[in-house]
């Protein structure tokens, strides 16, 4: 096994593209090292990207925010403008693992690990976040929901690295929220989760909405019908009821050690409803 620490993203891409055997990217390592220890992956090459210039920065740009691939989730909480603009995204990233894990783990890693139960991903999908990808063929930007294609699988080509997560600029009267269900209070993986992102008009009517569900299907679900249930209305009881029903219906969960199909469906609706109420309040709705 070879371990390298390239100083430029071009070098990292070149090393990954040219690797003969299985290669892995190391950012925080909170997924990779666990998988290696468990004997699930045995990479010949590990490319540690933490020394690459700029990857550990959170930048506020004209288009919004750019969160570098090696920014640990704990750093998101320390960034006041980001927290103010995207509280739901930050709270989602703050639920991963434990305090110690959050000092290492990254949102880009959470995305590329491609677990349907990843905590930051439903919030990012609801936020309409983009992934900035660098590869042998140059740069491209795609919606985050286009990165994972199934449990443990991504659309990234050989040699490609997610360089940053891009969050759009916030419209006025917007708010987001993320909730997940776990049987414990921490150190756990979502049984089911929901992220909701809303923008309101001056009367408190929802003008834009995105609703995403985690651990409810092989990939995170963007539920457009759920958004439609909210758009054009205030967050009245009927709208919330419709939201919960649509979300429960949109789930394609499995029965497993973490929960039953029936349980996940019901709780997906409950969480979507509760997240919507929080997002609405954060957007200034009453």
């Amino acid at each position, binding site marked *: 096994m070879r371990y390298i620490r390239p100083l430029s993203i071009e070098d990292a891409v070149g090393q990954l593209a040219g690797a003969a055997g299985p290669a892995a990217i190391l950012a925080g390592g909170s997924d990779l090292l666990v998988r290696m220890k468990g004997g699930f992956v045995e990479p010949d090459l590990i490319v540690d990207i933490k020394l690459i210039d700029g990857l550990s920065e959170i930048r506020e740009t004209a288009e919004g925010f750019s969160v570098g691939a090696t920014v640990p989730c704990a750093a998101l909480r320390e960034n006041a403008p980001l927290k103010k603009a995207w509280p739901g995204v930050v709270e989602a990233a703050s639920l991963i693992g434990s305090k110690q894990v959050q000092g290492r783990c990254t949102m880009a890693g959470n995305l590329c690990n491609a677990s349907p139960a990843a905590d930051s991903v439903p919030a990012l999908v609801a936020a309409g976040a983009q992934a900035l990808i660098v590869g042998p063929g140059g740069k491209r930007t795609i919606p985050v929901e286009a990165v994972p294609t199934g449990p443990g699988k991504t659309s990234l080509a050989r040699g490609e690295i997610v360089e940053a997560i891009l969050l759009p600029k916030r419209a006025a009267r917007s708010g987001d929220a993320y909730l997940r*269900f776990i*049987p*414990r*209070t921490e150190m756990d993986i979502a049984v089911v989760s929901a992220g909701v992102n809303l923008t309101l008009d001056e009367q408190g009517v929802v003008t834009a909405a995105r609703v995403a569900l985690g651990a409810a299907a092989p990939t995170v679900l963007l539920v457009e019908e759920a958004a439609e249930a909210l758009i054009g209305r205030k967050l009245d009881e009927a709208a919330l009821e419709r939201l919960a029903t649509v979300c429960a219906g949109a789930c394609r969960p499995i029965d497993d*050690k973490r929960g039953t199909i*029936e349980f996940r469906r019901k*709780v997906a609706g*409950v969480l979507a409803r509760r997240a919507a109420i929080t997002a609405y309040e954060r957007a200034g709705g009453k």
Partner: protein
Amino acid sequence: MNFDPRFSGRQFKSVGTRPIRPDGVDKVTGRARYGADFSMAGQLVGRVLRSPHAHARIRGIDTSKAEQLPGVKAVITAADLPDLTNGDAAMFDILDNCMARTKALYDGHAVAAVAAVDARTARQALKLIEVDYEILPHVTDVDEAMQHGAPLINDAIFTEGLEEKPVKPSNVSKRTQYGHGDVHEGFGQADFIVERSFKTEQTHQGYIEPHACVANVSSDGTADLWVCTQGHFVYRQHCAQLLGMEASKLRVTSSEIGGGFGGKTHVWAEPVALALSRKAGRPVKLVMTRDEVFRASGPTSATSIDVKIGARKDGTITAAEATLRYTSGPYAGMWAEIGAMTAFACYRLDNVKTVGYEVLVNRPKTAAYRAPSAPMAAFAVESAVDELAKELGMDAVEFRIKNAAQEGTRSSYGPVYGPIGIGPTLEAAKDHPHMKAPLGKNQGRGMACGFWFNFGGQTCTDLNIGMDGSVSLAVGTVDVGGSRASLSLVAAEELGIDYSQVKAIVADTSSLGYNDMTDGSRGTFSSSMATISAARNAIKILRERAAQTWDIPVDDVVWEKGHAIARGEKYGNLAALSLKEIAAASGKTGGPIAGHSELVADGAGVSFATHICDIEVDPETGSTRVIRYTVVQDAGKAVHPTYVEGQYQGGAAQGIGWALNEEYIYGKDGRLQNAGFLDYRIPVCSDLPMIDTQILEIPNPNHPYGVRGVGETSIVPPLAAIANAVSNAAGVRMTHIPMSPPRILAAIEAEREG
């Protein structure tokens, strides 16, 4: 030895105080040496190959490729652990469990092992071992295993305890029955009867330190074993017997222990490590992974229990009956029997009957888990008691007080009780502020009682007094919960010196006589008795030395407050001699001063507890939160109250995990789905409230200080107390442990739909 163990009321100086434990600093700074922290020059890495199948015949094992891998020094199978058990069925089960012989009986059952120069080579070698399995049908559920036509796990097992010897083999290894009176008649007198069926899932002790050992077999036939265990003397006997060694040639040293809770009373990896070392001719370190600990150590039973209790309108229980089915893994057990004994032990009953069935399943061999078998029985009984109180319109505590056992009561398992603490713990619970605290929305309160026998057993200690007056106490009971501090307090108390002058250690098997394991809540109870005895023997010598120094009869010398004092008017001018002074002169007065003790600590007083808890249930998700928790338990005498409280809190914490989320989840293929702490959910710190404790002290008449064991009883009431609280909060009776969110939500929905 003429040691009088009877309780004598006395004023304590050291006992009852809370000094820092002697092992504390090393533990919090990482210096303490646990099982895996010991290493030897030239040591190899041992790894075990385990069956991926729940039930399979082993047609053959080809180890040749693994043996040829460079760096591999030994490969063993069952052939390297020949059967030397000489008809001892229990020992044969232990042997077969350490290394499968003809059949793999559960997912995780060891089938072969290697010792190699490093972990990578050992792992590669395991992949090169070819096992030819014939997969057999399996059964993991307790009720399914009892059904006709269930896959048979061992065709040599015929149910014992039946009136007629059965003609067909069965997965039920034994039926046992306890009780007295006539339950049929008793139920006839009842105005109200509650009858319910309950299930509990299998849980693991969840000790944070995996099993680990270093084995070193010398070419002269002697051997050393450094190991994390609750009982190094028992490990020595078992390992020696399984390997065909004389026990005296095997020296076992116990490491610090990162939790055991009964799970380290049984050998798994140790005989394998010794066999590997014997074959390789080098020391072998064998450390189990967490996955191996879950799949292949000794979790507790899964159970299925039916309870029926009847009472008159005035609240008197007229009859109580229970049928208890406990899994024992793929070997015969005695777990249901213990459940049958403990089920109704809290109550004064004229008519009581319990029947236990030991059930074989394709799961790991059941081992003890803190008051083994009692929590499940208490869950079923205390749930039914609560329901019956409701039907009677009586307060749950008052109903229990009315029917509580007391001194002179014939217990449901036979013996007549001496002075016991069930009534006082109930009265204390009734008066506790917790009972009157207001409850919020979606919150419920529950309470329950629990009983445990406690055990004494064989104990041997040495107390040596150094020339500087320091006292070293060598005990043979492994310290699992602060017993070195407690025993130092006892030595200081008896000798009349300061705690800081005493240092207790756990001695190895070659340094002391035989000691039973630290189980049955016996560590502090039995070793404190032996320590008192040893100290009294040392005092006798101290008095003799003083008498010799003064040249007066020893009968005129008394021992008071750490000093020899000459008694009588004619010695008025003799200044008292301190322990330090006598020790300093010992070289000239007859040599070293020591006290020894060997005894069987009889009369471990039975122990009772009452727990109260408040739980909040989210009716939309089935999620639970423990809001408040209070433990009231009788300690006889709390030697070191902080560690007594620690035992109370620890048992409650484990009980909370068991009640709410912990369970072994098996797939249809009979494989364990959640062999790790991510999906086997023990509580994390933030899941628990501060667990309040109240120590009652009802002296045990059979111990000089009145001490009772305290370690286990605290895990008996929680399943029931929490089930009662959740049932009250959710408005529906919960009958299946753990009460995980999906189970609670399903029960609420079912209730809603009528």
